[in-house]
């Protein structure tokens, strides 16, 4: 029932992580306040640290894994030479979790996301999304995808962009309007229904894109560096927004980023990946309480976690270049966090 990480070097970290995951899932209230099952049906995440206090009715049965990847490999063929984009990726994402994929360029995080979205097919391994194959999940419209660019259709107004998936899925007109208006209100764009995308700022466009991804109420939200092209100030603002929306809707989020503070600030778990070949290095649990605010960024724990992620990335880097084969021990000094790094 836990998402298992398999750090490059060996099984020790994996076992550790497994242990920890089991603990959390078994008794959410005991651990750090975590969203996920607790907030899935619970509406807006209210008071600090109060969210997990009411796990809600959905929390009672064992939480199903929304994404289950087992030994997933993806190899690209470029002019006869094979490039391994992703190797033996094992990952489980539970319902209501906010999982970030972080790693250097070429580590396969976007590949993993696109595999989950069934935009590309794995070379080997098995991938299950919402209990079905990835293709079936896509056809069942189980996920909403947010790209790095807003990818708004510039010939459609803001509201028409949000209603687009609903049109394709055959929702009645009135419901389309209603849902789109509600979502635009949620992302704070009430007054912009009739504007064209180019009349909005980059941050506003990305918010429209998020609203669109949520329009048909999918279980899962796949976000591929959605704030990567934005400036720091807008990005932090949108991070808060995203957490609020996540709290309100209780979606499961798989989030690709290469900003360490962003990953720490948003995620309940961080999957650290390494490049060449792309693989999962380690998985770090983020035990910062939800809801998170500007103070969270100032907290000592936040800095410890960022340091841990940075260390893990650095280890992965070194491993990737073949400097050392025994990364687990090298990871020790930077971490200092019993539940994040071994």
């Amino acid at each position, binding site marked *: 029932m836990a998402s298992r990480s398999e750090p490059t070097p060996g099984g020790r970290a994996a076992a550790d992580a497994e242990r920890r995951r089991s603990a959390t899932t078994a008794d959410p209230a005991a651990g750090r306040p975590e969203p996920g099952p607790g907030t899935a049906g619970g509406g807006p995440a209210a008071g600090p640290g109060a969210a997990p206090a009411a796990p809600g009715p959905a929390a009672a049965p064992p939480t199903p894994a929304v994404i289950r990847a087992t030994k997933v490999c993806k190899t690209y063929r470029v002019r006869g030479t094979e490039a391994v984009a992703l190797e033996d990726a094992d990952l489980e994402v539970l319902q209501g979790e906010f999982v970030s994929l972080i790693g250097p360029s070429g580590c396969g995080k976007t590949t993993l996301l696109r595999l989950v979205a069934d935009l590309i097919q794995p070379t080997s391994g098995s991938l299950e999304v919402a209990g079905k194959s990835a293709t079936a999940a896509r056809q069942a419209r189980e996920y909403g995808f947010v790209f790095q660019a807003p990818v708004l259709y510039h*010939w459609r107004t803001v509201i028409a962009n949000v209603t687009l998936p609903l049109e394709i899925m055959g929702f009645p007109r009135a419901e389309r309007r209603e849902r789109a208006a509600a979502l635009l209100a949620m992302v704070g764009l009430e007054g912009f229904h009739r504007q064209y995308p180019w009349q909005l700022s980059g941050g506003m466009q990305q918010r429209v894109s998020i609203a669109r991804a949520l329009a048909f109420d999918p279980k899962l939200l796949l976000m591929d560096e959605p704030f990567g092209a934005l400036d720091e100030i807008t990005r932090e603002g949108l991070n808060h927004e995203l957490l609020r929306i996540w709290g309100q809707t209780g979606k499961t989020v798989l989030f690709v980023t290469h900003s360490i503070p962003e990953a720490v600030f948003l995620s309940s778990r961080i999957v650290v990946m390494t490049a060449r070949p792309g693989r999962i290095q380690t998985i770090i649990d983020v035990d910062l309480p939800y809801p998170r605010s500007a103070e969270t960024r100032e907290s000592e724990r936040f800095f410890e976690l960022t340091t841990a992620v940075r260390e893990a990335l650095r280890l992965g880097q070194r491993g990737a270049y073949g400097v050392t084969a025994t990364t687990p021990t090298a990871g020790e000094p930077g971490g200092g966090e019993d539940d994040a790094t071994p």
Partner: protein
Amino acid sequence: MSWLRRVWPVVAVMLATVALGYPVALLFGLPLARQRMNDLSNWTSQTVAAQPVARVPTTPSTLTFASAPASGVLVRDGAPLASPYRQDGDTVQLGAPLARPAVTLGAALRGPLDAAGLVYRLPAAADTGEPLYLNGTLLHAGAIQSHERADGRVTTFTFDAASGPVAVGDRVLIQGRDYRAKGDKVVFANPPDFNVDVRRITGDYAVLDAAKGIVALARPAGAAPRLGVDAVRLAERLAGAVNGSNRTFTLAHAPLVRTDPSRQVYLDGTALSSAPERPRERVDGQRARFTFASSRGLVTVDGQLMSPGTQYTRDGPVVTFTQPPRRNAEVRQYRDYLVSDVRAGTITLATPPKPGSVVWAANYTYYARPACGTTVMQCFASMPQHPVPFPNWIAARVVPYVSHYPITDQRNIVRGVLYTTAGTVSALLLGGAFGVLLAVLFVFLRPLEQALLPWVIASQTIPIIALVPVLLLILGNVGITVQTSLIPTALIGAYIAFFPVTVGTVTGLRSVDPLALDLMTSYAANPFQVFVKVRFPAAVPFLFTSLKLGTAAALVGALVAETESNNRRGLGYDIVGQVQAGNVSDLWILLLISAALGIGLVALVGLIQRFTAPWDRP
């Protein structure tokens, strides 16, 4: 005021273009005007003739002339008078009385033949060239033609002179009854007959009909004029030293008309001939020996005077060149003299005249001034057809051109514009529809694109002007003619308009952001939804851009189709007509109208884009 801010750059550019029209017109026109001015064939020519005595002398030692050359020579019957005399301006003082009278008055003219007492008949038609004296005074001949040609309908004629009686054919008309004169304009009560001479008498008299010997006086005379026969005349003495070695002499007026049959140059009492002699042999490029009719004279090759001894040797009529003249060169011999310099009016005699002899000219023609004017600007302004007229000349033609045909006539320009617009729009609709259809097929069926694209491209390499007649013949065979139907115009326009639409739309349909397609995949959208919701809207800006190109192409097609038609409709027909008529200003007007039509139609497409696809940034 904001529209003003938007409009002013356009206005400024238009004004600048118009202003630029002037230097460009001068740039193109001035060399032509200069050429016209320098081309002697466009000059008005004037004749110099030996003057008869102006007044029958009362004192036999003084002779007066109406006009006299600076250096004159008294002649009678083609020979200088031997008696000594002294010229002083227009008068000549004789040193000794003449053996015969200076003027012998001949027969009186018969007449008057009309009520007004103006028309007379010469005793014989052969006397036309003889001087006429009225009461002992020489009469000057002079008449000018009207600007307009009599075509049997025109009644208003314009002359360069504002006064004088008006003659039609050999009749002098009566003012008030037959015509009314207003300055240089004359309005006839009845239109003169077709092709008849309409003249105004500006001198003392005019010869109305040389064959019949009919002359008309400018004003009624008390007595009939009389012929002056055997008159002493004052001829022009050619400038040049007569020293036994000089052979070149200069006429007072130049440039000369090179082949002037009226020219009469004399050496003392002998008339000199300027007729060229041709060699008997063919000039084949090998031969150096040529035989001429006379055994003396000046030899020229291609107009270049050859010098005897060095360039040729003579043995009687046989001339041997040291260098054979090139094939077909003009080898000529001038027995007496040749005009060695037309511009300077210089002649060269074959043999130098002996000291004491006189070289004189009784008659010759020279070019007085360019017909178009004395300055380049005058010639520029008088040129009937400029390649680049001044903008204001074009502007002046607009109203006459547009109002030339009434709106009820098919040739009316407004109706022509509407007809061409109809042709262009139908061509655009047809070509646009076909182009989009082809593009959609190409994008969805790649093999079709691979199969057809080379042919589509090849179709555009066929010059439309060659294709149109064939297409019209084919369509004409099934009863569809460009005279009666817009279908051929639409087909021809569509033929060249569809190509940019196809290319643009294919590009547009392929221009979709891959992420936008990924997004549609994530929605599990079907191909039709992808096309309708993403591909087609993404192609719309490309479609409109290519439609604008297609509009210009459709207009070309419509114009070309119209040039092949003879139904007298449309701008294309009019353009060809004005080219054939040589109306340059009207062609410019048509060019501007066509340009405005093209711009207007493209702007219309842009307007449609703004309403149907408002998402594109303006």
